[in-house]
């Protein structure tokens, strides 16, 4: 059905081994992808696009427009009303996107905060801080005294986006690489932040109560726990760490890799055979967690594992299922399908700063995998997906952040792949994810990096005529929000894109997506998508039935005509026409190849009839 798609289905250990043996034989990437040979350039790179067009590109604000490693790297995005909040390792930018073709900088806040992952809730902005160089006072001169060190979550009041006001720093033992908002199930004035920090616990002398330990079950141990901050919205300055959820305990005791049953430990030493020293093997933290509050579920991307966690009580989350796979380097982030029955996990092989999408790069690494959730809440791993283009050695590239695109009847997501660009993926069929569209620029840097260097000391200054190290850039994350796809370009700035109809995505599907609107959107805290009763929604299903030949062509043509006729009517006439059409379509279910979709379309027609008055 789609030549670009590629995948391996791995539902058993045998299949995994078979796959591992045959991956190398695949002719992939194809070598003919339009993204393969784009001209390089920071602001004048060549572009290849399909199904996505650039609505606007905005340069980085001058305060951050300096290429110096990751010091001024843009990071993730959060959305609230007409504003997009863009994190940066040196602060954050608030964009007014009321006119998507001309985003305006509302404010730039300088505040050294690696890596600056933002979330927004009401009038509060939360920013993740991790690493040794962040200061309580936001200054950029490095931490001079341990008590000045900030690692955790910064809170700002953005009720006036033009003048963000600092509220407080919430310190955590492992800092905050990322964080995820979890609303309190009942209390409207309380939210939680699930904090994932990847660094070692800070010294006890710097922050009291922090302990590094090897025992995952030790309640005093700051590692092996998901830190939970409680934020009273009326008094955000009183936010504090309330617990550490031990969602990793036991993972090292029962290793399971890609369906392989757990077996006994290594046999005793035979002669000179070296022995591995005892150490916990399970993850001690997540990289990122995504919650789906309506389903009370959390998908954790946690080192060597993907986890499914129950969050019915946000202060007492517990693990439901876990999946591991030697073909995944670092479980990085997760996206739920809208029905909560699938999760796309990403693998950040190479940490995001390495070029892992080259022709020679391993196909099963650094992409996505689709996992299904059974009724009894257990994971089953299905296919892999990786962008099918062959990126260059100058382009840091790996699977990164994304979120759902609200097209009814399909599981679609937008995703950033660093300098691999932005793409749109259909994962409706967990075994057959495929690419629907993309937008990609050539590399930022013009020339290949030197692979190795002489042993002699390097010159005191970077060589003239070029950057001494590869520029880290590309899309940190790409997210659909209220009609547009926004992408945070790490080095270049801020992109706004729009979906365009192709044979893989119709104008009706795009129109239906635009009907879904949110006030706040934090991609790692997934809202449920709901569509109003509308013609584009019905027609999305119809287009999908035509594309997939899920219903006889004579019938889809007749339904199309009936819908067109009904749309010209109004009030009770329209209602009668649609009710009659729904009855006809319900009769089509029995003989249809894609009966479920026909049934859903019939019910959407009825819903539209009911709304016509």
């Amino acid at each position: 059905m789609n030549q670009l798609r590629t995948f391996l289905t791995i539902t058993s250990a045998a299949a995994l081994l078979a796959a591992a043996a045959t991956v190398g034989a695949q002719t992939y990437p194809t070598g003919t992808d339009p993204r393969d040979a784009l001209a390089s350039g920071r602001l004048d790179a060549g572009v290849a696009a399909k199904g996505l067009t650039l609505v606007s590109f905005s340069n980085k604000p001058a305060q951050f427009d300096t290429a110096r490693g990751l010091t001024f790297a843009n990071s993730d995005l959060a959305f609230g009303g007409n504003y997009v909040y863009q994190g940066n390792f040196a602060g954050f930018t608030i964009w007014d996107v009321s006119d998507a073709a001309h985003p305006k900088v509302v404010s730039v806040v300088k505040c050294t905060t690696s890596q600056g992952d933002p979330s927004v809730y009401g009038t509060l902005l939360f920013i993740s801080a991790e690493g040794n160089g962040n200061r309580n006072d936001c200054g950029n001169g490095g931490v001079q005294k341990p008590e000045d060190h900030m690692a955790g979550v910064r809170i700002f009041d953005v009720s006036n986006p033009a003048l963000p006001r600092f509220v407080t720093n919430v310190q955590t033992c492992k800092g905050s690489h990322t964080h995820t908002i979890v609303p309190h199930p009942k209390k409207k004035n309380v939210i939680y932040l699930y904090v994932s920090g990847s660094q070692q616990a800070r010294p006890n002398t710097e922050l009291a109560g922090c302990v590094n330990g090897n025992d995952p079950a030790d309640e005093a141990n700051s590692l092996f726990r998901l830190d939970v901050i409680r934020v009273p919205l009326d008094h955000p300055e009183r936010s504090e760490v309330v617990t550490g959820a031990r969602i990793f305990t036991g993972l090292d005791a029962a290793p399971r890799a890609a369906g392989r049953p757990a077996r006994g430990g290594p046999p005793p030493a035979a002669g000179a055979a070296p022995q591995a020293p005892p150490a916990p093997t399970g993850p001690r933290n997540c990289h990122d967690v995504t919650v789906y509050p309506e389903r009370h579920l959390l998908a954790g991307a946690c080192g060597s594992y993907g986890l499914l966690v129950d969050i019915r009580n946000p202060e007492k989350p517990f693990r439901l299922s876990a999946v591991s796979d030697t073909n995944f380097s670092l479980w990085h982030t997760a996206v739920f399908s809208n029905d909560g029955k699938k999760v796309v996990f990403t693998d950040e092989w190479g940490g995001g700063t390495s070029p892992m999408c080259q022709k020679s790069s391993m196909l099963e690494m650094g992409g996505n995998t689709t996992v299904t959730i059974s009724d009894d809440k257990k994971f089953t791993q299905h296919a892999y997906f990786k962008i099918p283009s062959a990126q260059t050695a100058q382009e840091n590239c790996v699977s990164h952040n994304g979120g759902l695109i609200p097209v009814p009847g399909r599981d679609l997501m937008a995703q950033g792949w660093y300098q691999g660009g932005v793409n749109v993926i259909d994962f409706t069929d967990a075994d057959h994810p495929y690419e629907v569209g993309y937008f990609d620029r050539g590399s930022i840097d013009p020339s290949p990096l030197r692979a190795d260097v002489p042993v002699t000391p390097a010159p005191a200054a970077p060589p003239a005529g070029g950057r001494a190290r590869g520029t880290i850039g590309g899309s940190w994350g790409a997210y659909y929000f209220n009609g547009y796809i926004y992408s945070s370009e790490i080095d270049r700035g801020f992109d706004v894109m729009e979906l365009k109809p192709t044979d893989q995505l119709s104008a009706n599907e795009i129109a239906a997506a635009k009907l879904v609107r949110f006030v706040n959107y934090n991609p790692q805290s997934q809202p449920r998508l709901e569509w109003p009763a509308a013609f584009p929604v019905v027609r999305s299903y119809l287009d999908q039935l035509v594309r997939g030949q899920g219903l006889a062509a004579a019938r889809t043509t007749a339904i199309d005509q009936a819908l067109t006729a009904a749309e010209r009517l109004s009030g009770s006439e329209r209602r009668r026409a649609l009710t009659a059409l729904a009855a006809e379509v319900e009769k089509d279910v029995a003989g249809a190849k894609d009966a479920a979709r026909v049934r859903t379309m019939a019910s959407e027609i009825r819903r539209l009839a009911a709304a016509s008055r």
Partner: protein
Amino acid sequence: MAFHMTQRISLAPARRIAVAFFCAVLALGCTPRAARSPAASPEAAPAAHDMSTMSGAHTGHTMTGLDAPVTIPPGALYVEADVRFMQGMIAHHAQAIYMSRLASEHGANPRLQRFAIKIDQSQTTEIQQMQGWLRANGQMAPDTSSYHTVMMPGMLTPEQIAQLDKATGPDFDRAFLVLMIQHHEGALKMVEDLFATPRAGQDVDVSVFANDVVSVQTAEIGLMRQMLSSLPQSRP
């Protein structure tokens, strides 16, 4: 931070080292006993002049430079420990790459072979990053041959290298996993030492890189222990 300089480690007869290392650095699919011409190598080394200097590096001279004093420019957020960490980790990674490239010719199981390629590809690009950071900051950037002369935590001794090189099939799988776990745990120790050094790890690139090392290698240790636990029993 511990930074041990040692005598040149004799991994094997000199000729063998030269050829094996040449392959290890230049070509993914090349076996250690059959070097191919740089022009035929798709991997890792796009610039010809680097290869020529590298071929000079492995033909026998003792590496110098890592014991040279480090000068920190005024206003820099990094300290000497950061520079030493990046320099030492290059050697550390280079040995992991050498170990990984033994897997195919030593009859490792297919799953382990893929895993070894993964370590190879991951750490090759990380070496480029470390070298890039060092060069961008005007610091001496060691090349991959430095693993012959620099000993960092977790790195294999000559005896352990010999032990790994002698093993084949399931014995290789076991030796590889055990020794690579040791090697990875050494990398974690290096990061721990780095972050325990006052004022170190504040440069954002070093901080992000060091944390990535922890995340990735901790995950890989877990996977290797899983693989170790599913190996067939050793022959008596």
